[in-house]
C-alpha cells in the first residue's frame, strides 16, 4: 500500500505527534508498505529518507502561544506536488484542524483521507470564526481517529461527527528490556517532562515533596526534562534541595533506563493532556505509576486498575499516596504486574494493525488519492467547477 502521512509540526522540534508519526512510518515500512511523510522542516535539516520537507514553518502567534505553522501559497504548492508525485492509496493527516499542513492537505486532496485528532483543545475563538471553512475541508475526511475516548468526546462536541478510538503506540519491548541503572535505584521517584511548563505539574510535586521526605527521608526525586533547574526548586526549603537530582534532557535509551530504575513514577500533570504516552512508557518499563486523575490519564490507567490516581493539583493527596506506595513493596509489585499486562494493547503491533484496518476499510473499492481539482484548480478558484 502507498501511504502518505502529513505531519503538521516541525520535524526538527521533538514532540509527541512527531514521534508518533516517526514510529508509525517506520512500523509500516518494516511491514513492506511504501510510506512518505510530508513535514515542515528547515531545508538544511537532515531528514530520514521517507520524509519530504514542506518548507520551513513560520512562527506566528496562534491560540495564546507562538506556534510554528505552514501556510500560504508556497506551502500549498508543495502539498499539491507531494500529492501528485506520491500517487498514494491513502493519506493520513494528523491534526487536521491546526492551520498548518494538515488543513492544507485536507483542502488540496481528494480520495481516501484518514485523520488523527491528537489534542483535545477547548474550542478556540478562531475555530468558531473559521467553522464553515474548516467544516468544508473536514468533510472530505473519510475516517477519523481519536487517540483517546476523551479526545473523541471533544471532537464530537466541537466538530460533530464521530471517530474511532485508536490509542498512541509505544514500543513496549524497548522499555521492558532496558537495563536499570544502579545509581537511579533505591527509594527513587521519577518525573519526566518540561520543568518550566506548569501544566506538566512539577510545582505540585515540589509542594508534596517536603511531606514525602518527612516520612521517608531517604527518598530521591529524579527529574528529566529541560527548563530552569534553580527556579524549579525555589519553593523547597534549602536543606531539601539536595534530594532533587536534575538529569536534563535525556536520550530515549536513558529515558527507558530511568523508568526501569525508579520505584515510583509520578505524573502530576494539571491539564492539557489528551492521552498520556509517558504513562504507557512507564508501565512498559514496569514502573508503578501514580498520576493525577485527569480524564485522559484515568483512561490510560484503566480507571486506576493499572496505576494509582490522586486528586488533580492536590499536593497532600499526592504526598499521602506516594508515601503509602513507597512503603508497600507488595502493592508496587502488584501495580508492576498489572501495568505490564495492561500496556500490551498500546504496543505498536496492536495499534499499527488497527490503523492499517482503518486504511483498508476506507480504501476498499475506492480510487487513489489525487489532487482535488474542484478546490485547487483554476476553474474552482473562479468558482466554475461543480462536477
Amino acid at each position: 500500500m502507498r501511504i502518505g502521512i502529513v505531519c503538521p509540526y516541525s520535524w526538527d522540534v521533538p514532540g509527541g505527534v512527531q514521534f508518533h508519526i516517526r514510529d508509525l512510518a517506520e512500523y509500516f515500512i518494516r511491514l513492506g508498505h511504501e510510506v512518505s511523510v510530508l513535514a515542515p522542516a528547515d531545508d538544511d535539516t537532515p531528514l530520514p529518507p521517507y520524509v519530504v520537507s514542506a518548507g520551513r514553518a513560520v512562527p506566528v502567534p496562534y491560540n495564546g502561544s507562538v506556534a510554528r505553522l505552514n501556510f500560504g501559497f508556497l506551502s500549498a504548492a508543495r502539498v499539491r506536488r507531494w500529492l501528485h508525485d506520491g500517487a498514494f492509496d491513502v493519506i493520513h493527516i494528523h491534526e487536521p484542524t491546526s492551520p498548518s499542513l494538515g488543513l492544507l492537505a485536507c483542502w488540496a486532496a481528494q480520495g481516501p483521507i484518514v485523520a488523527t485528532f491528537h489534542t483535545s483543545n477547548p474550542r478556540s475563538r478562531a475555530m468558531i470564526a473559521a467553522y464553515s471553512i474548516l467544516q468544508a475541508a473536514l468533510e472530505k475526511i473519510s475516517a477519523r481517529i481519536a487517540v483517546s475516548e476523551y479526545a473523541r468526546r471533544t471532537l464530537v462536541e466541537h466538530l460533530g461527527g464521530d471517530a474511532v478510538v485508536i490509542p498512541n503506540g509505544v514500543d513496549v519491548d524497548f522499555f521492558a528490556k532496558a537495563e536499570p541503572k544502579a545509581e537511579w535505584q533505591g527509594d527513587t521517584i521519577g518525573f519526566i517532562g518540561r520543568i518550566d511548563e506548569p501544566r506538566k505539574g512539577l510545582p505540585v510535586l515540589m509542594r508534596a515533596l517536603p511531606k514525602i521526605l518527612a516520612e521517608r527521608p531517604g527518598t530521591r526525586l529524579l527529574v528529566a526534562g529541560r527548563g530552569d533547574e534553580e527556579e524549579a526548586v525555589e519553593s523547597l526549603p534549602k536543606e531539601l534541595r539536595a534530594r532533587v537530582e536534575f538529569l536534563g534532557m535525556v536520550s530515549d535509551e536513558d529515558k527507558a533506563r530511568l523508568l526501569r530504575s525508579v520505584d515510583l513514577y509520578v505524573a502530576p500533570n494539571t491539564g492539557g493532556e489528551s492521552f498520556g504516552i509517558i504513562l504507557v512508557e512507564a508501565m512498559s518499563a514496569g514502573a508503578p505509576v501514580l498520576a493525577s486523575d485527569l480524564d485522559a490519564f484515568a483512561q490510560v490507567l484503566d480507571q486506576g486498575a493499572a496505576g494509582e490516581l490522586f486528586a488533580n493539583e492536590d499536593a497532600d493527596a499526592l504526598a499521602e499516596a506516594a508515601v503509602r506506595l513507597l512503603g508497600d513493596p507488595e502493592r508496587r509489585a502488584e501495580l508492576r504486574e498489572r501495568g505490564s499486562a495492561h500496556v500490551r494493547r498500546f504496543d505498536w503491533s496492536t495499534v499499527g494493525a488497527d490503523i492499517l484496518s482503518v486504511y483498508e476499510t476506507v480504501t476498499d473499492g475506492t480510487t487513489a488519492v489525487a489532487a482535488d481539482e474542484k478546490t485547487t484548480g483554476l476553474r474552482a478558484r473562479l468558482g466554475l467547477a461543480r462536477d
Partner: protein
Amino acid sequence: MTATLIWTLVAVVVLVAIGLYLSWTAGRLDRLHARIDATRAALDAQLLRRASVTQELATSGVLDPAASIVLYEAAHAARQAEEEQREVAESELSQALRAVFAEPQQVEAVREAPGGVAAARELTEAVRRVPMARRFHNDAVGAARRLREHRKVRWFRLAGHAPFPMAFEMDDEPPAALVDRAA
C-alpha cells in the same frame, strides 16, 4: 442615470456571488453523497465478510453442535435479510457471536483446531472492522444531514433528488473474549 447603472452593477455582482456560493455548496454536498456511497459499500463489505467467516466457522465442526446451529442461523439470516430488516438481523448476529464467544476458553478451543488460528484471526478482524466501518458511514451521514438541513440547501433544493441519508444503526459490540488482547 449613473446611479441606476451602479445599482444594477452592484445587484449583478451580488447575484453572481450568491450563485458561486450556491454552486460551491452543491459541490460540497455532491462530494458528501459520494462519500456516503463509498462508506456504505465498505460497511456492506465488512458485514458480509463477518457473516461469511461466521458461517464458515459454524459449518467447520470446530464448535459444538448447538453453538454451530445458533451461529449458522444468525449468519444466514443476516445475509438474507431484506434492507428493512438488515439492522435487526446484523444486531442478532452480533448477539449470537457474543453468546458463543463469551468465554476465552471457547476462543482457545477454536485456535487449537486445525486451521483454527487463521479462522480466529479472521473473525477477530471482522468483528473489529464492522464497528469501524459503521462509525465512518454514520459520520458521513451526519455531515451530509447537517449540511442538508441548512436553509440555503433546502430553499434552493441543492440536494436534488438524492434520498435523505440514513444512518445504519445496529448493535456491533464485539465479543469480549475475541478482542481483548491485553490478556
